């Protein structure tokens, strides 16, 4: 067995060396496994859903490549959809569907002083193996003391999650929403994701 002998370096090294930029974990868009599995399960169970529904919130964005870190699932639908989903996911339901109105924890940043944001929807809540899912039917938003907006509506886009086709809220709608709320950091994240995909959303 030959002994490990390192040969003399007889040649001068003139090899191009590229500056490596190894990404930090926070720069990578990776969905955590428990949430991924919950997404898959929901996608499978809601395959034949008649009502319009789509993944929304952060989960809807990360499935389109946006660099966010969701810790729960959100679905945006209408009231009928809420009922239908509750039937299909009844094994996981932890709260019966009801009208809910509350303030969310981030304010609108469009005027010098921050304006509180209220949302109301017909809400159902679920728990899939420790992963929370909130389903919102006819979600409406109110900024400060303005009038309530109309229920959010959209045409879903589709993405694939390991072979299961699932609907997501279009990023274009999210961009308009974030602009309306003054959350330009979120707009920037979506733009960065679309730039990586070579698409442009104004």
């Amino acid at each position: 067995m030959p002994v490990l002998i390192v040969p003399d370096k007889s040649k001068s090294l003139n090899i191009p060396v590229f500056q490596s930029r190894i990404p930090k974990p926070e720069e990578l868009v990776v969905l955590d496994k428990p949430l991924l599995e919950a997404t898959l399960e929901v996608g499978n169970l809601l395959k034949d859903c008649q009502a319009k529904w789509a993944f929304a919130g952060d989960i809807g964005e990360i499935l389109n490549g946006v660099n966010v870190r969701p810790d729960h699932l959100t679905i945006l639908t209408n009231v009928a959809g809420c009922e239908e989903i509750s039937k299909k996911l009844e094994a996981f339901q932890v709260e019966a569907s009801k009208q809910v109105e509350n303030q969310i924890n981030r304010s609108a940043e469009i005027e010098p002083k921050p304006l509180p944001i209220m949302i109301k929807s017909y809400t159902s809540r679920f728990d899939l193996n420790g992963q929370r899912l909130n389903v919102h039917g006819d979600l409406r938003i109110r900024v400060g003391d303005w009038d309530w907006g109309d229920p959010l509506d959209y045409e879903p886009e589709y993405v694939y999650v390991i072979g299961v086709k699932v609907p997501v809220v279009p990023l274009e709608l999210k961009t308009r929403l974030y602009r309306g709320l003054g959350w330009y950091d979120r707009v920037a994240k979506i733009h960065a994701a679309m730039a990586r995909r070579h698409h442009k959303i104004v």
Partner: protein
Amino acid sequence: MSTVIQENPVDVVCLGVGFMSGVVATELALAGNSVVGITKGPYWDYVNDYSTTKYDEWGVGLGRKYDSPLPLQSTTIRNNINQFALPVRRYTMPIQYHALGHGVGGAAQHYGGGMGRFGPWAYEMASRTASAYGSGFLASINPQDDTHDWPLTYAEYEPYYVEWEKAHGICGNYNGSPTNSPSDINYPWMSRNYPLPPHPMTPLGQLFQSTVQGMTAPNGQKYNPFPTVSALSSQPYTNQYGVTVNPCVYEGYCAGLCDYACETGAKANAAYRTIPAAINSGNFTLVTNAYIFRLELSPSGNQVVAAHYYDAQGNDHRQPGKVFFNGMWGYNMIRLMLLSGLGTPYVYNSGAGTGSGVVGRGLTNGYTPYRGTSVSGTVNIGGNSYPAGNGSGGGVSVFDLMDDNFSHSSISPPFIGGGLFGAGGYLGGGPGNITFAGGVSAPNTLNPNGAMGSAFKATQQNKYLPTKQSVGATPFAPDLPTFMNYIDLDPHYTDAYGDPVSRLTYDWTPNTYNGATYLVNQIKAILTQMGATNVTVGATVAPYSAHNDWWGHHLRGGLRIGTDPNAGTATAWAALSGYNQLYYNSNTAGVNYFAAGEITNTTGNNATAGTHAAGPQSYRAAEGIKKYLANVATSGVNYLAS
């Protein structure tokens, strides 16, 4: 005296960070093990590194600016042991001989995205041929035959194929199996479909599909066309590791003649499918610009204890680990073992026409010979041949002429196996301003002045705007393993650090050429039925009449797994019998493509199906490594019984 820099020991050391290491590193890191991945190149960030500079045929396609620099290392080639092996001195135009990848993702930074499973027959090629055609048949058609079965069957590999396809987002719709059940031993049946739908089909693809659906194949059944399998993502996708993938944007700087890196990450590649999850786990360390040159063995010689690599300044680093996965590209994987004294080197005995040993043995090829019997015709479907589309979508294939799907009993000249045929790939899958040999050719009968003068210039006018297409193929049956094709170390040339480069002794085997003479007639029938005009079969090219001089990109083998310890690496290191750390297996199934193109631009190949067939092996390796580490942890035993 040079000092050696000691690195912290880890559980798993991955040599090279390409497709295979990507799988192993991610599987093991996510399972909680400490993993180091070492690559001689950089980390490529497709947004920063590619998005505005990759549309550059000269720099990327021909200059290979993202690939391994030749001054760092090259390889040599000869056809026969009595020849002097010449080194590859430059990346030539446009086929990049020996274009080793460089950096994270490796060679998958530049391929056309073609994929496709091997069929069940390929895994039992030797035994099924013996039982169907007699035990001496293989030896009679393949001089110095060295064909062996794989140690696992297709059915055993099938679940690993599924994992591979999920991880990389492979697009398609089954593989043409009529029943898609495990009883179908002639087609790659699938327990579940590819995770992504196929790309949009071209008009030629549709014509091919509808034509063959009405034709009877030699096996007596109708042809079963299926969309060409592609590793270029067709939709936004998230894989089982939670890594998100952008869909292809079809802007055509993908494959064609030169093969390009992908600026949206749609082209499957460890850097954008597996490695992000490994990094995200916190258990994975990536070492770049690090040139692995030795594996250090234990005093008894039956264990690898550390990997040695040079950093960019030439310092020697010693990286210890419990398990080593060799995911380096073909020649380098074998070369490293030879340099390290690992395993029994293969030695060819030309007098006896046999060989002994294992490392470097069984080299084959998964591509058409540069000159072979061909067939072509013209169809009146035009299109855009400038960059639009991608390198592997748009077309349709049939598996009905592959493997043993038709009887080979009375075919003369005799051969085994068959070819994968298809048509309809996007015309604009990749720029081809300088067409290999066709555009830069010596004076010949077609062009008396070669590629010069007004007459030839006129042929280039509007060549990207064809109103009709030439459709054809140079088919090939499997290139069979033989004792005379192998890899060893070159006695004359060294890499930048003074170590011998690899030497390829290789020429195509007769099976490749003889299969073509039968297959061209099947293709001729299809072309005729499609309504092609000028359907012509070219002159027969006999075995050994056109020596190989392009060998780099689709060679396979050299370090195969098997149940015979004298033929395979079951004893390469006794610790991992039954599992493997290997990149390729030697038994290949011949695959063909024919796709549309103007003049002689017959593009399309399923040569990177070799990668697809190797993929399941990486999952087997990951599984084996987990078992091994568990064994070590629980019983302190540092070997793994099969």
